[in-house]
């Protein structure tokens, strides 16, 4: 279960970067209209914010598996 969540997060981060690159290309192309530019920019910023939020920012201390199979501080 936790595995799946991690892989999901894994895919989204890399995929997100890909999507961000795509959108950036769109933004930089001369063909795009001003309205479209606004939309792409906003979407990009939103995606970036999401990526940032998926990164855990809580510092962790090292845990060790003891004889009973339980976790304790190392």
């Amino acid at each position: 279960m936790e595995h799946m969540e991690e892989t999901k997060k894994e895919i989204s981060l890399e995929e997100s970067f890909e999507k961000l690159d795509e959108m950036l290309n769109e933004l930089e192309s001369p063909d795009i209209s001003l309205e479209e530019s606004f939309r792409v920019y906003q979407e990009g910023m939103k995606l970036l914010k999401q990526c940032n939020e998926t990164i855990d920012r809580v510092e962790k201390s090292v845990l060790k598996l003891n004889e009973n199979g339980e976790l304790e501080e190392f």
Partner: protein
Amino acid sequence: MARNVYTVAQVNSYIKNMFTQDYMLQSISVKGEVSNCKYHTSGHIYFTLKDRSGTIACVMFAGSRSGLAFRMSEGMQVVVTGRIDVYERDGKYQLYAQKITRQGIGDLYARFEQLKRELEEEGMFAAQYKRPIPKYIRTLGVVTAQTGAAVRDIINIAGRRNPYVQIILYPAIVQGEAAVQSIINGIHALEDAGVDVIIAGRGGGSIEDLWAFNEEAVARAVFECSVPVISAVGHETDTTIIDFVADLRAPTPSAAAELAVYDIRELSERFSGVREMYRRGMERKLREAAMQLQNRKTRLRYLSPLSQIREKRNFAMNLEGALQEAMDRKLAEKRQRLLLYIERLKGLSPLEKLKQGYSYVSTTEGETLISVKQVKAGDRLKIYVTDGFVEAEAKSIGRLK
């Protein structure tokens, strides 16, 4: 009969010479049991090599210590390779060791090569079975001894790169009889705990110390583990079986931590970088749009009726100016010509002549007197000067020749 009597020095020298001349004694390998081993502070090692029948004194000088890769102790079975020579001072011969190895070490290497061949044939080293190491992990499992440089290095480097990754350590026994099962248990336990990647390894040591990581059972455990495994055994030059089976091989435990844990500072920078590019892209678009707007504004302003009127008015004013100028010029021209004529006329004016002292003389008939033929003596003449005339009578006529 007189016997030759020699000195001790001569005899010892003679014997030493015999040894030196003996080809076999220059490099010989001797196996035996270590006894009376003394590690001197100078770095030299003195010991005795013994077997059932006898002993031989050995020394390994500090300069040759690179030929010894482990700590020698009482009772060890070793093979000493070196030179047998005479220490004249004591009248003794010694084995001067260049290289010392454990007995049966050759066996271990052979076993390593064989297992490596077998498992390779089975396909366990094949690239297609290697699981990719996830880039952005949340949890890191470590199978290694809970004391020592390996675990310390891994924790330090992982923590430096990303303190938000959860490290779970399975404290394993990494050498000796219990090691194999301990390592296998560790891999299974961490797999069950659901970590994103496992580092399995230990610090440097001899081939015997590292042997657990060459065991088939451990190799299979690594191969079958559903979580990607990074092998981190010993130093860069040490290779064990699990280095081939693992999903990724790291030369050292420190390197393993770098491979497993992404650097969050780099990720943050990447985020900033992307944000900056978007901002700039948007800025550029806005600037372009503003420029386009300005461009049209200018053109519109130019085309406006007010602007057109101003334009025409300007044009008219210029024309007027030009006209005026042309007119003035023409007038000046004509005036100039007039002045010239006046001057010429003045030049030709009889009044001027009169002013210069010339007179205009006319006969009584009113003819202008030019020649003496027109007059004879006694005729009346009128002499005109500037301010009047003088009536005169011709007295006599003279001719110019």
